[in-house]
């Protein structure tokens, strides 16, 4: 009898180990600011980031550059619900959904098996009155990530893809800075998860199969992979790059609405796209150049000057970039050089 009881207890332990607590939907939808990331149960093994039930890993065709950090992105939609497809903007997610994104650096970018040091995990929580953005910073021992609403700087170093040693004070954004980028008409909005950037030919249909998304039309739009020359024209790839790196602020309803510079993928107004557009409030960000883009002349275009700067009074994007994105700069230089000179 005792033996049977012990066996039952052992079986229970086994079952509970193999069936971890589900994602805490009520915490996502609630009105508290959980102190630790583990409270959400997004991952079954903490910093290992093995996704829990209904937590799905995804990638974007063209991602935001974040000082060469690698990113792990996950989406969570509560059981029995789906996000609503939208051809133009980001998808509409039901209350209780979450987007989870971790940032880290491999010790050596040349080695695919190199251990990754995860620094932070940012979450966007869909609540009844909108999205809430919170930054969680991983403990030294990786046991949990703790809410840091005021942000933080973390010294980090790695060996880059060319074998050079790199080191920066990585910036974890504060809660307001989260909103600076994730702002649309003064409400927190998503940036990446729209049809054109998620659509890799299969993912949208998969998301429907997995009941994350309500539908996936055959003709869903798609932006190319910015650094894959076989995947789109130079113009398309440059616009995809500017879309994800700039248009979250540089849109008519974003944080840089006052600039008149709008870089959404489908923006058609040439002046709004920066072509022969004079700066407004750039200050020394103009670099003594007359136009955001002077066709044919990247060396005379403010775009390149500001992408090439690490000075916080000049650098664009303003947040989340302490390093130069050499490959991105090269793409935009080619894009501008290929434009016909005016007149």
């Amino acid at each position, binding site marked *: 009898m005792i033996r049977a009881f012990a066996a039952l207890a052992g079986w229970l332990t086994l079952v509970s180990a193999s069936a971890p607590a589900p994602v805490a939907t009520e915490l996502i939808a609630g009105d508290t600011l959980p102190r630790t990331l583990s409270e959400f149960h997004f991952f079954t093994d903490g910093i290992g980031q093995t996704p829990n039930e209904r937590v799905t890993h995804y990638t974007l065709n063209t991602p935001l550059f974040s000082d060469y950090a690698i990113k792990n992105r996950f989406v969570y939609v509560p059981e029995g619900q789906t996000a609503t497809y939208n051809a133009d903007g980001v998808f509409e997610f039901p209350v209780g959904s979450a987007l989870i994104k971790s940032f880290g650096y491999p010790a050596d970018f040349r080695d695919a098996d190199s251990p990754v040091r995860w620094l932070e995990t940012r979450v966007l929580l869909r609540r009844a009155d909108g999205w809430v953005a919170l930054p969680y910073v991983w403990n030294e021992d990786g046991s949990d990530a703790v809410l840091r*609403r*005021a*942000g*933080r*700087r973390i010294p980090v170093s790695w060996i880059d893809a060319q074998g050079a040693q790199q080191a920066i*004070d990585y*910036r974890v954004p*504060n*809660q*307001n*800075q989260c*909103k*600076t980028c994730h*702002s649309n008409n*003064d409400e927190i909005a998503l940036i990446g998860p729209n049809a054109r950037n998620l659509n890799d030919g299969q993912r949208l249909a998969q998301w429907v199969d997995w009941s994350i998304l309500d539908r996936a039309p055959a003709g869903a739009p798609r932006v190319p992979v910015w650094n894959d020359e076989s995947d789109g024209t130079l113009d398309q790839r440059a616009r995809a790059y500017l879309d994800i790196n700039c248009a979250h602020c540089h849109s*008519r309803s974003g*944080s840089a*609405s*006052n600039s*008149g510079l709008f870089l959404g993928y489908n923006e058609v107004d*040439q*002046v*709004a796209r920066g072509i*022969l*557009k*004079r*700066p*407004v*409030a*750039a*200050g*020394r*960000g*103009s*670099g*003594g*150049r*007359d*136009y955001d883009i002077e066709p044919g002349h990247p060396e005379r275009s*403010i775009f390149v000057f500001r992408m090439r700067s690490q*000075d*916080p*009074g*000049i650098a664009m994007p*303003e*947040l989340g970039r*302490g390093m130069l994105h050499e490959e991105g700069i090269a793409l935009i230089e080619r894009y501008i050089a290929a434009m016909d000179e005016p007149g």
Partner: protein
Amino acid sequence: MKYIAAAAMLLASTSAFAAVHTVETGPDAQERLQEALIIAEPGDTVEIGAGRFELTDGLSLDVANVTVRGAGPDSSILDFSNQVGSGEGLLVTSDDVVLRDFAVENTRGDGIKSKEADRIVYHNIRVEWTRGPHPDNGAYGIYPVESTHVLVDGTTVTGSSDAGIYVGQSDQIVVRNNIVSYNVAGIEIENSMHADVYNNIATNNTGGVLVFDLPNLPQVGGHSTRIFHNLITDNNTANFAHEGNIVASVPAGMGIMVMANRNVHVFENVIGDHGTGNVLIVSYTETFDDENYNPYPREVLLERNAHGRAGYAPDIPGGEALAAALGGSLPPILWDGTGEIVLSNDEASVVSLGLTQAGQPLTDAQPRPVSLATDDVPETPAAVVLPETMEAALR
């Protein structure tokens, strides 16, 4: 004592639960200050202690109806000399915020920016680049943009590489009792409606007070500005703005410049000691592609201004030759000749360049003395009246 002050503030506040979050200098000041700005609830006060706060990243406030108060513009100093991130020192993106009694020094970009922050009050603030004029100083000292009801009162701004106090794409604006010096532009009202600029001292800038409108912005068509009771003297600092910016085109030695704006009344100011001119009224000269934009000055009136010496060192192309032709110096008031209803009843002479079109080359100029006097004085724009809560915040 602090306890009593906090209790008094608590009583004065509209919310029974208003709290005071006091942040003193010391380790982790960056995080503690930012944390206070995040956890503050509407009605709360964030109190910045006396001393120097060495900051490396920009601060931001996104909670409505919060007062950020220091111990005085020479006591509570937010020092951004070692800033490595963010485009400004302090960014405000919420409504009904009061900023008062502290200083912001040596930001890499703008000093204090408020965007879509209605009813913002800046009072007794100092923004300064302590090395003086330098092209690598930040652009704007105090920078409210896209806001309705803006009050900038009793501030001191020194060393901006663009404009000391810049109000852009806003409506219902009061800029008064400020001292702006050694900036490229002292005060600039741009693409904005209904602005009162008065009781300010603008001296040793490149240009004292500018009222501009620029194309290709979400809000164009600036109008209805009153500039009065200001002391605008000796703005002769060489232009140190970076090329490409509109203020880089401001000639040194300029008191007031009105460009492509409508219904601008300039009266009862003291304006003098300007090498180029006391007042310059012009159209926007660059090419543009914006059907909503009017590049001409319209309905501009000067009245009862006291003019001091001007035009003795003109910083405009062909200026010296023109001065020689006019007897050694330019008149105090310069007009490019374009636009409609440009009037002056000032006791000061006017030269027109005789241009008729915006963007016309200066080689077309046919300068001649003109009289812009009128008996048919147009109605002055109505005084800007701010909500009483904003005025009360100064007390």
